[in-house]
């Protein structure tokens, strides 16, 4: 009996560990196919219902992004100079902008074909790049890469590259210019203004 209990406990523990550390390539595949399935089954999402798309991303994709880490990388050298409050606001505004941008590119998601390649990684790796190829007729496949790091809460994405264009690197120069001209509060203000204008433009779409 004692032995059986021990076995059960072990199995439970193993199960918990398993759930926590879905391999990064499996995780990306699950999340992308899950989102695609939902879009294919939902007419509102296909016709570009923005509010619903944003909710979908927040529920299904955002938990797997380390958006504070993304913000830190995008802000770059200036991150260290920011106060805790400024960091919090920067991350919140950047998160909102990313979700909206993601949402505007998602309506095309429904009829795309993905090609997932198994990732060659060592068990001790904590920082990997997962590659997905998006196939479309008459064009070179678009390669989307997710830079992922292992965290206590499972693998999290901290940068996305589409056709070699890194989201984080792309924002770094913009953010750097704004901080240089207007300081960190200026950057927060610019992000907030941008998000407000996007939210205001929504009903028209």
């Amino acid at each position, binding site marked *: 009996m004692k032995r059986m209990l021990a076995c059960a406990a072990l199995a439970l523990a193993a199960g918990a560990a398993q759930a926590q550390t879905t391999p990064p390539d499996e995780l990306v595949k699950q999340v992308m196919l899950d989102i695609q399935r939902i879009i294919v089954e939902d007419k509102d999402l296909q016709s570009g219902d923005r509010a619903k798309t944003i909710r979908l991303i927040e529920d299904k994709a955002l938990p797997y992004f380390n958006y504070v*880490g993304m913000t*830190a*990388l995008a802000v*770059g050298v200036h*991150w*260290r100079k920011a106060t805790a409050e400024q960091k919090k606001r920067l991350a919140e505004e950047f998160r909102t*902008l990313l979700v*909206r*941008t993601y949402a*505007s*590119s998602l*309506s*095309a998601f429904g009829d795309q074909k993905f090609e997932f390649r198994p990732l060659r990684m060592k068990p001790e790796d904590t920082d990997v790049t997962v590659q997905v190829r998006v*196939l479309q*007729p*008459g*064009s*070179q*496949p678009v*390669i989307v890469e997710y830079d992922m790091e292992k965290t206590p809460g499972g693998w999290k994405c*901290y940068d996305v*590259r589409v*056709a*070699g*264009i*890194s989201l984080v*690197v*792309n924002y*770094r*120069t*913009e953010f750097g*210019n*704004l901080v*240089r001209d207007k300081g960190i509060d200026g950057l927060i203000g*610019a*992000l907030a203004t*941008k998000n407000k204008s*996007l939210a205001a433009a929504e009903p028209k779409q």
Partner: protein
Amino acid sequence: MSARALILVLALAGAGCASTPSDARDPLEGVNRAVFAFNDKTDEMVLRPAARLYRNVTPQGLRDAVRNFFSNIDDLFIGANNLLQGKLETAVNDWLRFAFNTTFGLLGIHDWASDMGLEKHNEDFGQTLGSWGVGDGMYLVLPLLGPSTLRDTAALPVDWAGDPLSGHTPVDERNALTATRVVGRRADLLGASRTLEEAALDRYVFLREAYLQQRRSQIHDGRPPRERPPAD
């Protein structure tokens, strides 16, 4: 270049001197921004409406056929560039694509080569120069053509010479084909340009960074050497 165009460029250059460039890769930022604004206006008034109209009046199947047709004739020169870069196997792949799609794919309107595993590539002479070790040079925004670099601009005459359309006669037909190609390409990018509009705080900077990053990736065929600043 006509005298009028030269005057325009000089006037723009004069306008550009007012602002101080902030980026070492973009010493002509003032001029570039002026050309960018001009391109943007042209896009808004001419190209984008034409692309929207094209998208609204044509069925998806026809647009795919048009895209495949132009993509197919590009494969010849793409293969030549791969050969110049020493990638013989890839060059053969590109020419097999052309041979196969031109015949069985009915003049290229079907891309059956891709279905058979002959993958499409993206090459141009700017990338070939890059693979030979020629650096970007300064960033440039070309009138109507958009983002470029000194290297990619210098490579353009070779790209034009390698474009099967540029030698095509009669000229009326060539112009019609060129217009179709340009409008078709713009239509494919309607979604992307909206995303750019929404994502960017400063669209000029956003597009510049994206272009420079993308070219770097293309030159290394999607596998650029990894460069990541240390995380804080």
